[in-house]
């Protein structure tokens, strides 16, 4: 693969032989293997309802796989142990902010649960607020914020709550198109500054290409293997990249892998 640059890096996540089915339903995952290297931004692209959120719940230690192993970080911790050791920053699809807490205290939740004294936790949040475009909102309550701002608070909470691996579950899917583009560029900028390991679930092809180093494609259910597409676009990126012919070519390849082959008119749907 063209991942030569990342080849020597240690793994942040290693999944082997993962199997899972809800009782009385066809399996969602069957002998699934994949790896994420440290500092990588990887997207999983799949149609809705294929089990993406179930996968994340397993990675976050909320759900036990029926077979296989999930190893997080260099110290070989299982998903459940990793949750206890707070190695995972999970950002759910909904913002899940507590309506009774201010922005400041919502963002500090992860630190607080990890035992950081309240004053110190608040200080760390205050330091990061301006960089996330949330300056001056610390005393506001979630219902006073826009959808985009709420997602940024949720992201900040995950950023401060976990350590080695960030799981982002379609965080922008509920936002309107304009806000979404803004949030994608914002995430790119933040990620390029912090270089955390991110696994990002999306069903938006453009979003996956714009953000990721690699895109993993789940085309069929049950998911037994993920197709891999390295995104070779240069960084730093902005939304302008979506107009690049290289981007369009990658998009065509992705759509083909998702099963949108249409004979001679492969590019017709792009």
């Amino acid at each position: 693969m063209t991942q030569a640059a990342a080849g020597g890096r240690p793994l942040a996540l290693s999944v082997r032989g993962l199997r899972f089915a809800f009782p009385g339903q066809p399996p969602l995952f069957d002998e699934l293997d994949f790896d994420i290297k440290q500092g990588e931004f990887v997207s999983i692209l799949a149609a809705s309802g294929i089990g993406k959120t179930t996968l994340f719940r397993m990675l976050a230690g909320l759900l036990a796989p029926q077979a296989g192993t999930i190893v997080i970080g260099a110290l070989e911790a299982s998903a459940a142990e990793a949750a206890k050791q707070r190695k995972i920053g999970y950002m759910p699809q909904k913002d899940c902010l507590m309506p009774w807490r201010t922005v400041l205290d919502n963002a500090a939740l992860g630190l607080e649960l990890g035992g950081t004294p309240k004053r110190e936790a608040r200080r760390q949040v205050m330091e990061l607020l301006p960089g996330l475009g949330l300056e001056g909102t610390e005393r506001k309550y979630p219902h006073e914020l826009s959808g985009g701002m709420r997602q940024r608070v949720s992201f900040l909470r995950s950023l401060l709550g976990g350590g080695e691996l960030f799981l982002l579950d379609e965080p922008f899917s509920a936002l309107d198109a304009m806000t979404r583009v803004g949030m994608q560029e914002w995430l790119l900028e933040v990620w390029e500054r912090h270089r955390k390991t991110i696994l990002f679930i999306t069903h938006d092809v453009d979003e996956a290409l714009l953000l990721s180093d690699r895109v993993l494609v789940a085309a069929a259910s049950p998911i037994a293997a993920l197709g891999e597409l390295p995104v070779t676009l240069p960084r730093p990126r902005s939304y302008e990249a979506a107009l690049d012919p290289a981007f369009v070519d990658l998009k065509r390849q992705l759509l083909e892998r998702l099963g949108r082959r249409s004979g001679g008119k492969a590019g017709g749907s792009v």
Partner: protein
Amino acid sequence: MRRKLTAYAPVLAFVLLLAALWEAGTRMFHIPHYIIPRLSDVFVSMWENRQLLSKHGATTLWEALLGLGISTAAGTLTAVWIDRSSLAKKTIYPLIVGSQTIPIIVLSPIMVMWFGYEIWSKIAVVILFTFFSVVVNTADGLRSADPDIGALMKTMGAGKRDLLLKWKIPSALPGFFTGLKMAAAFSVGGATLGEWLGGESGLGVYTKRASNMLRADAVFSGVLLLSVMGIMLFLVVLWLEKAILAYRRT
């Protein structure tokens, strides 16, 4: 403060209008004082018996507060239990809801048989009147806690204690206060009924004696005080709710 006054202005004006109609109606139609006393006579009676009324009023208030306190403590614990145990949810919760079909007023004399003519039978009736709304509203509040927030907290290493204190309880507070407001309003009625069934002191005793003597002005003065007491208890809980759930106002 001024904004609060303007918010209450319509209801105050309406009460004053009703009071004026009462006074004017009883004078105009020459209604006998033992059927409906003049409002002014009610206030005169209230003033003349002010020492007796404050003594009886204190008894009733104390019974209502004590019963309400016990109901709140026991009701909250029961709600937490119902929320944590699926067995309790399937057995205790439906039983408590079903118990509301029992007419409490019929059950109340049994409380006197069990707990005697002292204060405890009154408190038992207050608990009968208030326990249900505390348990059911608090249990519903606990159940309304967003499971996604709980899951998120678990990925951040939250233990059972964290989940209860930082997720379940804050989520349940609005429901809890709804229950407590209803309970506060019911508690005075419960205490009065307990006193009616037998007792030495309290506004229930006072109004019963006055009624036996056909002193309608004294009955109405007791009833007015009881109603004011219920409204005051309700307003105290409302104020507490607004202070604690300040985030809902912004």
